């Protein structure tokens, strides 16, 4: 059974996340962990705004926090967000990766090592290629890879880069992504979910 979704998003992220997170039900059985590229001096407007709109709980990721289902954790500005193998969150101020801190690759790589085939990776709109390597690793570990359909992205560079590099499982238009992730049978067992997802 899938346990977590990691989402990587850059330019155009506010609109994209607003189209997805509010669609998830309050008892959504997975945890969602998000890296949204943003300026390092940004405050937590994004987290509060999305929390107000959503039934799932949206909050800034804190170091040492235990990851829970039905929660959405957003990387704080200016810090990398990583997942430890004991399913807790951690932060670092290591140098930027792909010119980015937080970096999507950093989140996805650590998430893949932790959740292995119980993980879904999702790449959304953006103007660079951060996240492609990470999504590849999600697949190497047996996870499931989804990319926003480039033609529905505000900026299509990031989804295109991911599709070029990774053998993705599904490419989905933005407006259908929330419903797709929220579907009910989704969280049964991995094989079952895989079949449902591929229908």
């Amino acid at each position: 059974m899938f346990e977590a979704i990691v989402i990587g998003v850059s330019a155009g992220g506010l609109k994209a996340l607003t189209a997805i997170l509010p669609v998830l039900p309050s008892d959504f059985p997975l945890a969602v962990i998000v890296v949204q590229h943003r300026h390092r001096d940004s405050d937590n407007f994004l987290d509060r705004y999305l929390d107000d709109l959503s039934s799932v709980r949206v909050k800034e990721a804190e170091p040492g926090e235990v990851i829970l289902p039905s929660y959405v954790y957003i990387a704080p500005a200016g810090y990398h967000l990583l997942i430890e193998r004991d399913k807790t969150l951690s932060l670092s101020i290591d140098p930027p990766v792909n010119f980015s801190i937080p970096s999507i690759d950093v989140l996805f790589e650590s998430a893949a090592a932790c959740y292995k085939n119980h993980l879904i990776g999702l790449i959304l709109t953006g103007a660079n290629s951060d996240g492609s390597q990470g999504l590849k690793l999600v697949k190497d570990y047996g996870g499931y890879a989804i990319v926003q359909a480039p033609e529905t992205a505000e900026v299509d560079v990031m989804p295109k880069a991911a599709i070029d590099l990774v053998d993705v499982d599904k490419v989905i238009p933005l407006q259908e992504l929330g419903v797709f992730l929220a579907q009910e049978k989704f969280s049964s067992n991995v094989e079952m979910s895989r079949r449902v997802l591929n229908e």
Partner: protein
Amino acid sequence: MKPEDMQEFEINQLLEAIYFRYGYDFRDYSKASLERRVLHRVQQSDLGSISEMLPRIMHDTEFFELFLRDMSVTVTEMFRDPKVFKKLRKEVFTQLKTYSRVNIWHAGCATGEEVYSMAIMLKEEGLLDRTRIYATDYNNHSLDIAEKGIYPAEKMKGYTESYITAGGKASFADYYLAKFGSAKMVESLKEHITFANHNLMKDQPFAEMHLIVCRNVLIYFNPKLQDRVLTLFKDSLISRGFLLLGDKETLDFSQVKPSFETFSKEERIFRRMMYV
């Protein structure tokens, strides 16, 4: 078995080996970012896997020095989070002024930028002359840079902005000498600072500290090591002494929490309770 599935085992074995061979206990570090740095070194050194690095670590002390340097994240800057420095200056310094001698400890000072920022503010508030700053790290390479106090001149523009936001009262350019593309911090700041090697994994507390600054170091430690270090700080502080942590760090999950009160939640400033 796929290579990915061996990685956790390999990394644990590597950390055991390092502890056995050199006494550095990285087993209590946050693994995810550490693992990333280890893999980076594996790649840089053209090794095929973490296991291939193991013999190098065990038998080649020079290689281990290189590895140690990789493990220590030296990212830092002057007046990081200017609002924190402003708060210190406005509310903590007024308390420090009631003492005739002030001791400050920067733990995990990296290349020193944070320490010089502190010295500048102390000077502007008339506190520097009665203050001794102890600045420690376990990375000798960083300490060398910190001691020299020479930084790339192109960074000074950004630092000047942060200095102003932090409530700087004079001209930032008065605190360094610009020469050949570098900026050297002035002696009048340096003479109040003592740089020294101190390993938070295993070394002893300092005595009689009025303020301890340890920012963006605890995020690299697991809860067990965090507790060790915070206990060290608790034991090093005078009654009513101050503790400043990094912007995302808290005492919330720590056993020392009852010994501290929150002085400023937003700026992560805590205060040692009165000794009983």
